[in-house]
């Protein structure tokens, strides 16, 4: 088990909306820029949920993060 700070979502739609909220807060994309998002979401297939990992300052856009536990793949 790997524990990290972040934001957990049940559906991909919720995760996409949160990603857009963060991008809007950061003002991305800038005119002429190709960087679309500040953070991206991941899917934990062994746990069945979507999540965004916390980065410095993200609480201003998405609120306080929580501790989430992700089950890693065992085999490389």
């Amino acid at each position, binding site marked *: 088990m790997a524990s990290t700070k972040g934001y957990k979502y049940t559906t991909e739609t919720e995760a996409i909306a949160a990603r857009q909220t963060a991008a809007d807060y950061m003002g991305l994309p800038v005119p002429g820029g*190709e*960087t679309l998002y*500040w953070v*991206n979401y991941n899917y934990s*297939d062994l746990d069945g949920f979507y999540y965004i990992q916390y*980065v410095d300052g993200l609480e201003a856009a998405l609120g306080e993060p929580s501790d989430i536990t992700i089950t890693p793949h065992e*085999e*490389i």
Partner: protein
Amino acid sequence: MITPYSNIISVTTLEALLLDTYSGAAAAYSLRKLSATYTGSAIRVRRESDNTEQDIGFVDNELDTSALTTFCSGTNGFVMTWYDQSGNGYDASQTTATSQPQIVSSGSVLLENGKAAINFLNSKEFRITVANSFFGLNDISAFLVTRTISNDTGGLSQKRDALLAGNFGIGVNAGKYQFQTRNGAISSTVDSTNAYSTQQIVNVIRNSSGLYMNSPETKFTSSAVADLTSSGTWQFGNGSSYGIFNGNIQEKIIYLSDQTSNQSAIQSNINSYYGVY
């Protein structure tokens, strides 16, 4: 009467650009110019101060670090796109800011052994859009210039489906370089014996005989040819099963052909620029 020469003519032998001599790469990423016919930029960089982006090209066949430091004066710079110099258009890109690898720190270009390097610490990766059959049953030769910063596990380059199907993977496993091709029962892996935390040229080849790796140890594993067709994203600096790579990458060249006969010469070309050994 013999008139003595008063001037000494100095002749410097310049190494040919790699792809001009060893052509046919399927994808090629570098912080030096690899082909005289390539007219594009090396990288597209986002500066952290205002998220503005700019293409950075070459000067004298090297990354234009002057333009890079001017653009990123006093701030951090991250690579949004590493352009493919092969001519095939397989640019490696990352549209999420926090996943973009770094090349400038507080106005200074990150260096590895005196040359610019892209740093993949802390969950950075590029993605490359290719056909599902890109690797398929092809012979494969890959050359990377890299340094692992910690003896952990992470993917240098991987494309696979879930459940280890169609898996092409070059990575680091507990600090040891690893090359794997897997598709169901046809599964083969070759590992370096030792862990390395210094700059290395990593060369892997998959052909009809099996898997070969020089990193710098020479290793070989006999294997049938696995079909590496997969719908998975081709990741660069990460891996869906390896996870995050912590280290630097300065060059990555992929041939979908067996370059065994050119292996030594290609490594020599790479080393003449990077001075790895």
